[in-house]
């Protein structure tokens, strides 16, 4: 029933948008001045996760007015992330809708891989953006997404590293490796778990690195032998110890948000986040106690970037390009990096910026509760090939959850 309703909605949305006056121009063939002229008075539909009041405030109170005043663009934010974007674009493409409901989306490696699979991403467009000259493409954490070269099909927006969150009053000495975690679990049963989602699978990648001894084992194309060797060790470790997990390891939270809730309730002593500034962010929102801290265990953690992608069937690709260009501008990136605003790491190579912006970035307010990027950056692990993620999801369900 829901599916049928979705078809009808998409059909009518598509019909409405096709009857609009926007023309199907290829912005890649236009000069930037022509692009700016073209987008005046247009609307851009940006689908993004809207689960954080700080991020929403940044987009609604800063980005939207700026785009309107600078370029005459009306930005409409649509709620949705990863799989929602893929599902909608896929359904629209399968229904033959050429001017879909999403112009651009906030995507990560998982979504990039899926959208590339279905030829859902427009590009290469990044080089066309004037502000892309400041992007740090020498940084492999930015130039590659799940070991796949971005090749101009998605524009870097922010860079983050996974951290484990804990309450320093409840956990004075957090475990730094799997052996220490095993001891901790036995001493404090029921206080640890991981979400059965992107964040949880990202933690499992870091566990794989510890079991293999080095992340190099997992760099490059997917290797079945390496995966089986170390993932089997991982499942053995989890199955041997899951009786000490939250709810005896019989169930796992389906996302980070419920984990945060359990952490705040005191049921869990740990939570986690793919945003290394999350603790500052959540303490400022009054959600986490001030004794909350974050760390990266000895085995390291995955550092990755998040990006903006423009859809092949987006109705306003030129407008989406202008929005992306603004969002990677020094002013927008500087504001976003402030822990009191969002705390998202910049994707700009600050040494490439004009001096005034270099100075501003160097004087950026520091994090109060989260570890510094320099500190955790030493333990950063690059994302693995997407096939590892597919297999981890499948096997975590088959060999842990359903076992």
């Amino acid at each position: 029933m829901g599916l049928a309703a979705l078809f009808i909605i998409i059909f009518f949305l598509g019909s409405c948008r096709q009857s609009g006056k926007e023309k199907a121009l290829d912005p890649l063939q236009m000069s930037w001045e022509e692009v700016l002229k073209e987008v005046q008075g247009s609307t851009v539909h940006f689908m993004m996760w809207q689960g954080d009041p700080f991020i929403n405030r940044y987009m609604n109170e800063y980005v939207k007015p700026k785009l309107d005043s600078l370029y005459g663009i009306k930005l409409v934010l649509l709620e949705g992330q990863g799989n929602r974007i893929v599902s909608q674009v896929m359904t629209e493409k399968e229904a033959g809708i050429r001017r879909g409901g999403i112009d651009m989306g906030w995507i990560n490696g998982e979504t990039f891989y899926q959208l590339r699979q279905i030829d859902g991403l427009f590009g290469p467009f990044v080089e066309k953006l004037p502000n892309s000259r400041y992007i740090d493409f020498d940084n492999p954490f930015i130039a590659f997404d799940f070991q796949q070269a971005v090749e101009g099909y998605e524009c870097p927006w922010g860079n983050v590293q996974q951290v484990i969150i804990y309450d320093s009053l409840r956990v004075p000495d957090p475990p730094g490796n799997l052996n220490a975690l095993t001891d901790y679990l036995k001493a404090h049963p029921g206080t640890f778990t991981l979400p059965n989602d992107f964040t949880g699978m990202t933690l499992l990648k870091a566990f794989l690195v510890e079991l293999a001894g080095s992340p190099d084992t997992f760099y490059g194309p997917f290797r079945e032998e390496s995966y089986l060797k170390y993932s089997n060790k991982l499942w053995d470790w989890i199955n041997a110890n899951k009786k000490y997990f939250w709810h005896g390891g019989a169930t796992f939270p389906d996302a980070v948000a419920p984990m945060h809730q359990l952490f705040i309730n005191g049921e869990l002593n740990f939570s986690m986040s793919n945003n290394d500034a999350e603790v500052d962010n959540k303490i400022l929102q009054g959600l986490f106690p001030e004794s909350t801290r974050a760390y990266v265990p000895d085995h390291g953690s995955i550092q990755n970037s998040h990006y903006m992608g423009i859809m092949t069937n987006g109705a306003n690709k030129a407008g989406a390009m202008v929005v992306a260009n603004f969002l990677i501008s020094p002013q927008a990136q500087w504001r976003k990096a402030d822990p009191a605003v969002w705390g998202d790491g910049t994707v700009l190579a600050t040494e490439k910026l004009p001096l005034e912006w270099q100075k501003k970035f160097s004087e950026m307010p520091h994090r109060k509760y989260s570890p510094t990027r320099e500190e955790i950056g030493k333990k950063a692990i690059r994302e693995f090939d997407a096939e590892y993620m597919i297999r981890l999801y499948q096997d975590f369900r088959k060999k842990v959850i359903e076992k």
Partner: protein
Amino acid sequence: MLPLAAGAVYALLYSVGLAGSLARGFTLRYWESLVCRGTLWQTFAYSAYIMGVSILLSYLSALALVISARGRLMQRKWSRIFYLPLAVPALVLAFFAFRFLSGGGWLASLDFRLGFITSPQDFPELVNDPYGLGIIFVHFLLAFAFFSIYLDRVYANEHIEEQVQSAKILGAGSWQRLRRVIGPMILRKTWPAVSLYALFVFGSYEVPLLLGRSTPEMLSVRIVRMLSKFNLEDRPEGFAIVFAYMVLTVLLVIALRKSKGGLR
């Protein structure tokens, strides 16, 4: 019916590899994978269990209340309280149940203050538990309120109390009045609506998503998970479950329409 039929055909085609961006021609491997793994039956059985227990408990409780009030339940001053759960979205009620019943929730905090438990882990599992207690609790709250209002109206409209009094005069005992008068009259009149409500519980999403376990999953939770999996190659399995669910729904509606006193 047309969108429903179109959706069913699309789901069927998708599940056999004949529709979708990544379709590669006819195959039954997605169906085989679902049926052979056995988790499909587990999902249907678990959904049926949650539905059965929730509906049975709420229906019988509401019926007992309505009978004891002799069909005048909604005439009482405090009766408006029954409308409250119906005005609250299921997700909000589920969140309330989570805050109330979880190990770090209000009930556990009270137990902690009273010295019954020393940590959240000591509190019994009432949400995300193996028996779906949290899910049943929320569905009970919603359905009990709905059935109380509905049964009270039926009791009054069908003049059941007059029939009960007549039976009493003719010498029927309380068990006979319940079995021969109230039961048949109420059941005959309400079972189509109860069946539809049961179907709604069978396909519920938000409540089991928040209060259920990673396995077994209720039907809608599993469908959404499979349709949004990282591996797009698994989407056809999700559509196979969608199709099976739609067929089941249609069969039930047809059965209701054909039944005596059913949907018209």
